[in-house]
């Protein structure tokens, strides 16, 4: 279980839209998560604000292009740059997604799902170990939203994640919204997913909004967190105890106070749910 010191509290995704507001208001946010690729540049605005905000808040790094399950060789140059960024940022942890985003020859710039097969499991686990050797820390991997399932699946997604964590030593970023989105799209019980994960490996939680098309749901990060996701989150906290939690917003940005209000809601829910237990920051 995360302890008081390992849980960072309640955070937000750091987005350029809010750079100025953060420095001016110094909001009561416990930490920020950066999208690593946005800072793998040589200079300019992004690095300026990264340093300025990093002086005042703890940061964690979240990547989108590791392509841990891809058919290509791991990009050593990318990993070295990630490691250099980590030296600058001193993140509490480094995460990416359990997916592939690059094909054999081309970058596909999406978080594509993997078949949940023994072959995939061995492939990904070996690559996770390589990444951890370079970064010299456990890799934290996030479950993705998905719109496809392969006929060759031998495990459920939650069984696959649990086995991967056991085999490779990776930690987990549980995106509650992604569980909800995939559960709606593929017709499984989201609680079966969450309750089957190895609790002690869950380092962080993501909350976000999505677009509901009635029959299916698309993960868009452009809406507030919806009620069923809040309910799943509360149940997750009851099961796990305190876990660092953050809200991701990537489009249709609301006024900063509105986003802070949403984070406050997460904090209040956490405090109510975890009454009498060790609390996050």
């Amino acid at each position: 279980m995360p302890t008081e010191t390992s849980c960072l509290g309640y955070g937000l995704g750091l987005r350029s839209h809010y750079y100025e507001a953060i420095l001016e208001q110094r909001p009561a946010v416990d930490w920020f998560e950066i999208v690593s690729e946005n800072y793998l540049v040589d200079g300019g605005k992004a690095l300026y604000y990264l340093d300025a905000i990093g002086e005042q808040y703890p940061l964690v790094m979240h990547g989108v292009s590791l392509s841990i399950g891809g058919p290509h060789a791991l990009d050593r140059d990318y990993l070295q740059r990630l490691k250099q960024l980590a030296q600058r940022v001193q993140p509490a942890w480094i995460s990416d997604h359990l997916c592939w985003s690059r094909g054999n020859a081309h970058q596909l710039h999406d978080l594509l799902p993997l078949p949940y097969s023994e072959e995939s499991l061995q492939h990904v686990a070996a690559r996770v170990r390589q990444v951890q050797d370079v970064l010299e820390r456990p890799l934290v991997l996030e479950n993705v939203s998905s719109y496809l399932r392969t006929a060759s699946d031998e495990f459920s997604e939650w069984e696959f994640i649990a086995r991967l964590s056991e085999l490779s030593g990776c930690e987990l970023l549980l995106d509650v919204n992604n569980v909800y989105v995939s559960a709606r799209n593929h017709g499984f019980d989201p609680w079966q997913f969450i309750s089957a994960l190895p609790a002690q490996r869950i380092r962080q939680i993501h909350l976000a909004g999505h677009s509901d098309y009635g029959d299916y749901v698309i993960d868009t990060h452009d809406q507030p967190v919806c009620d069923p996701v809040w309910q799943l989150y509360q149940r997750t906290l009851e099961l796990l105890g305190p876990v660092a939690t953050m809200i991701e917003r990537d489009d249709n940005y609301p006024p900063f106070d509105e986003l802070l209000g949403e984070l406050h809601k997460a904090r209040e829910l956490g405090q109510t749910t975890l009454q009498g237990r060790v609390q996050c920051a």
Partner: protein
Amino acid sequence: MRLNDWQLALEAYLLGERVEPDSALHASLLGSPTLSVEQGLQIYHHAYRARLQEVLREDFPAVHYWLGDEQFEALVSAYFKANPSRHFSLRWLGERFADFIGQHLQGGQTEALVELARLEWAFTLAFDAAQGEPLSLAQVAGLAPEEWPGLQVSLVPSAQCLPLTYNSLALWQAAKTGAAFPTSTALAQPMLCLLWRRDLLSHYRSLDSAEADALQGMAVHGWNFARLCEQLAAHGEDVPLRAAGWLKQWLGEGLLQRRTG
């Protein structure tokens, strides 16, 4: 299907034009009561294109404005077909866009469109180039007199010099400010546009040929201040004053750093 084969099949599907999958890919997937295989694939097919289009619209707003949605989208689609992304970061998607426009489009306005795309890309390069270590006026003023003649400089990493033969700057400004978009026309006199970033802000200005020669001499060819004066003397100028004036301006603008190596 083996993992690698399946990934290649999905990659080929995403890169291809057809929304309908081939039978092998279709057979490798399972739909659900709420989301069929076709719908699921289409979500990824659409997202791939939408993402690439969005990035280029943001990086080339003036080219987009000029062409309009439909023509711009067709141009970007053709670009990605010929140049699928090879860099992990979306930031580099547009790297070959200006060259591609020159190869792909025909017609009298192609040259002007290429120039505009080059200008827009140059601003993206300036935006996140390394800061370098710009020399300040105070630092140079603090040099001992004997150090002056030997002073060697280079341009800061964000600085670029673009030859312009069309009113591309006016088009770029109009797209940026939302002002009425001018018609593309050839300039009466070609110009050199110097653009760079100082701290967090991008700057640009025109450069006449004498100043351009002097700046290039010092910052690219490694002339020291003494050599700059010699070169100007050949043109019979009021030498030290003019050279010092330029140097002062360049330093004030944050364009120069000390040459290393």
